[in-house]
């Protein structure tokens, strides 16, 4: 408050000096001192004004920065939410496509199952597992490996 009055007085003084008719430069010392004082007063007032404006702008800038930061955070959250929504929509579309793909694959599996069923109807042993190798052991230089019997598929008719 005190600073404001001082600044206002300095401004008024500076304006008055600026508006006043410029005196002729006087050669005497008193006049020179007065001129110097007037100049110093005007400069001081100007400095005060500048400093005040500087502080105000700094405060505004600080507030603006805070607002900007808040706005930025708010905007980021909104943007993130929008991105989440967009991503969800894309994922939903991907899931929908996957469902279609699974349905098509299921149809193919059903067709293959039907084909297999037609090849090997109930009571038929056209496709049968077949024991391909008996249990044996195979020896190499360092290890003895047990060979388990393996199941192979056989095609044909009748029980062998």
């Amino acid at each position: 408050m005190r600073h404001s009055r001082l600044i206002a007085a300095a401004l008024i003084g500076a304006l008055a000096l600026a508006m006043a008719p410029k005196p002729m430069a006087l050669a005497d010392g008193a006049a020179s001192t007065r001129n110097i004082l007037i100049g110093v007063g005007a400069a001081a007032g100007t400095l005060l004004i500048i400093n005040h404006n500087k502080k105000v702008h700094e405060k505004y800038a600080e507030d603006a920065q805070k607002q900007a930061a808040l706005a930025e955070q708010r905007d980021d959250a909104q943007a993130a939410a929008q991105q989440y929504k967009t991503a969800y929509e894309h994922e939903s579309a991907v899931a929908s496509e996957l469902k279609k793909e699974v349905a098509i694959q299921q149809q193919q599996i059903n067709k293959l199952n039907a084909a297999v069923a037609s090849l090997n109807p109930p009571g038929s042993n056209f496709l049968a597992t077949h024991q391909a190798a008996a249990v044996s052991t195979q020896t190499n230089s360092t290890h003895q490996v047990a060979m388990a019997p393996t199941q192979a598929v056989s095609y044909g008719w009748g029980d062998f």
Partner: protein
Amino acid sequence: MSARYIIAACLLAVALTACGQSRGGDPQAVAGRVAQALYNNDYNGATADFDDALKAQATRTQVAMISDKMHTLGDYQGVTSTKSDDDTRRYWFDAKFSKGDMIVELRLHANGQIAAYRLVPKTS
């Protein structure tokens, strides 16, 4: 003149007998004939020697499938006997193809009809 007729009749009888034996009795011939028919996707040829039960089971789709399996191994080159059990009339053969082999398992009835015929792809 009559001697020539007799000789010719004997030769004809021998030939007919041989043909009859080769058609029904020789397991390798039977196995080879069925394998060749399967390779050719010839349903009637493949099932000609089957007994009634096997004929009822076999379908053209199954014959076609086996034919496809055989063709993946290349050209059919015949069967050779690898093992036999005359008491049970069970026979094993190696069916040779240009790019691999299959095992043929054959079981015959006493009358020469096929009681079982199976093909086992060889795994390397």
